[in-house]
């Protein structure tokens, strides 16, 4: 058995961060997209799993820690930054993530939010902004635009919204970024950059509440227009956007303006992004759609000592003068009281709910269901069985690499499934594995076992799942071949995007 190329170091992958908890978000919620990217990015940030903690407050987004297979606290409404601050200064080795929403983080928790940021505690704050209270079923939130009609603002909200980025900048945030839930790759990059920053990192995520505010980000996030509606910021590069990269942002006095390139205006006239400029960050934070494209990416990034560094320095200085402290001495140095037992509190009497509810009024507040297209229905209602998956070619783990590759060539296929002695799926071996780990790296293919070069424990689906699930695995996790298994984990088939296209093409002509 050859073990030449097996890394000795334990490498984490996405699955290590997936918990076994039932996910209680509505079908189609943008939170899923965020969860997937966090789970994908964490194995790459260079922090051991046991040093990662997720702390949340109250709200839909705050259910996040249950779904992460890490340490976590589902804490008090709005107070996640305070618990996180305590943890971060007690154990500076931790990577502490605060998960909050526009309600939790900016309403009840607004103060904790700005103070964590101004102290520059080493936290990563993920602010899920859907501009609505989702968990309590659709009231206006601190980021809802003025005039927003909701169940708690039937004639339109009178409140001006908070701009989370401007608020964080006012607290002199050292890292501020913005991303969109449906823009998966870019979202993952924002999380990675946040994780690498020392100090408070804020990532505002435009998140889609499919039930109570499904149209809030529609005009910005639609894939067809994204190049026109988003301004992807890159440090040191001019601010260009548009499908044909023919528009830009310039300064006119103190104000940003959108200009068309050509007719006398060149790239040299445009604003160049500078992550270290606070003034520019304020200008960017003030740009709102549709007057401007929405700036996304890292808006501000500067280095400043963290709260913990300062605190540890003070402790060291104090100890140098006074010596190490003693908790018992401290505890007994002040007055002590003994609290005597007292009566149980009276049970409060519950009041009657008002029966006088105007059903018509409640019905009027319900959102119109969003119409779906033929292709959306196809992805959700047609199953993987409808793709008529090809039967897989399977081999044992002790098959030689030479034989395995020969099998792939004989059958003209891109992947083999590896099964155990009970014919259960234990691995997948693809052309990519040959490229990445075999050719030119393994001298004697006849002496090496495919089991040592396969991807063990691959993601496998069942045939009753919707096509959308396969597209999810392909788009979010980058798989090109997906094995199908039965309930006993016996391989039943293999699907690739080509099968999806074949099915769609047939559906195109049928309609």
């Amino acid at each position: 058995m050859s073990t030449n190329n097996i890394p000795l170091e334990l490498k984490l992958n996405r699955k290590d961060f997936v918990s076994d908890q039932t996910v209680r978000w509505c079908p189609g919620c943008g939170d899923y997209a965020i969860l997937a990217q966090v789970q994908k990015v964490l194995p790459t940030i260079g922090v051991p799993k046991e040093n990662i903690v997720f702390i949340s407050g109250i709200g839909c987004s705050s259910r996040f820690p249950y779904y992460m297979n890490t340490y976590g606290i589902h804490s008090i409404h709005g107070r996640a930054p305070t618990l996180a601050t305590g943890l971060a200064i007690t154990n500076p080795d931790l990577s502490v993530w605060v998960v909050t929403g526009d309600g939790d983080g900016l309403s009840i928790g607004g103060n904790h939010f700005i103070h964590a940021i101004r102290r520059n505690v080493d936290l990563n704050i993920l602010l899920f902004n859907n501009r609505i209270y989702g968990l309590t079923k659709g009231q206006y939130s601190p980021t809802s635009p003025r005039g927003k009609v909701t169940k708690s603002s039937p004639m339109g909200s009178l409140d001006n919204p908070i701009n989370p980025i401007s608020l964080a900048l006012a607290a002199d945030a050292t890292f501020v970024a913005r991303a969109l839930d449906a823009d998966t790759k870019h979202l993952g990059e924002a999380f990675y950059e946040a994780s690498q920053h020392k100090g408070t990192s804020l990532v505002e995520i435009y998140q889609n509440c499919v039930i109570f505010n499904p149209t809030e980000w529609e005009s910005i996030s639609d894939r067809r227009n994204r190049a026109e509606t988003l301004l992807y910021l890159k440090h040191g590069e001019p601010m260009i956007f548009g499908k044909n990269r023919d528009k830009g942002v310039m300064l006119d006095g103190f104000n940003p303006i959108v200009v068309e390139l050509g007719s006398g205006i060149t790239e040299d006239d445009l604003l160049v992004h500078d992550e270290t400029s606070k003034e520019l960050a304020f200008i960017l934070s003030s740009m709102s759609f549709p007057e401007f494209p929405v700036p996304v990416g890292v808006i501000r990034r500067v280095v400043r000592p963290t709260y913990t560094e300062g605190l540890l320095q003070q402790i060291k200085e104090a100890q140098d003068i006074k010596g190490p402290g003693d908790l018992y001495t401290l505890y007994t140095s002040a007055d002590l009281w003994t609290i005597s037992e007292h009566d149980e509190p009276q049970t409060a009497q519950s009041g009657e709910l008002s029966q006088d509810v105007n059903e018509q009024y409640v019905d009027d507040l319900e959102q119109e269901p969003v119409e779906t297209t033929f292709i959306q229905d196809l992805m959700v209602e047609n199953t993987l069985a409808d793709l008529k998956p090809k039967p897989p070619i399977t081999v044992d783990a002790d098959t030689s690499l030479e034989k395995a590759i020969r099998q792939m060539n004989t059958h003209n296929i891109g992947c083999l499934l590896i099964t155990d002695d009970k014919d259960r799926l234990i691995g997948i071996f693809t052309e990519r594995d040959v490229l990445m780990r075999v050719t030119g790296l393994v001298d004697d293919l006849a002496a090496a076992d495919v089991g040592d070069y396969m991807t063990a424990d691959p993601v496998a689906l069942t045939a009753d799942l919707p096509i959308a699930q396969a597209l999810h695995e392909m788009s979010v996790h980058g798989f090109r071949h997906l094995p199908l298994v039965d309930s006993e984990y016996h391989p039943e088939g293999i699907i690739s995007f080509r099968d999806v296209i074949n099915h769609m093409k047939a559906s195109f002509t049928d309609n």
Partner: protein
Amino acid sequence: MSLKEELESEQVAHLDLSGYCQTVTGTAVSDALNLMRQNRSNVCLVLDGDQLIGIFTERDIVRKVALHQELLDRPVDEIMTADPFAISCESSAAEALWLMHDKHIRNLPVLAEDGSIAGDMTYRSVIQYLAARYPIEVINRPPQPAQFPRKVEGG
């Protein structure tokens, strides 16, 4: 607008065409292979000057090189597919997709007006478009399929 019409009206240049690497004629197969590994890319375009003259993919490695490692020292030109299918960046996404489908190819180089390489279209380009176009159906799904909630307002 149906997806069919949408892909017909979307230019191929507006898809994500990244993820390829390129080298020049005469490069050894082993060097091309290392380049692909470094870039985590499954395709290497081969150029002569600015002109695309061939395409070298992971499939070539599996079918032609894996069991004949003596070929690693040969120039990539001997293994690559010469004069590969390519498409203009002004073509529609649909045109590119059906060309890939009909010709059974997984990489379709996209050329700018002047013949230089603008990118490499793959099924992944389309998958990413579909996902971003229909995030509610495709992207917003739980980490494990069995965790999918059966009704709204799961909390």
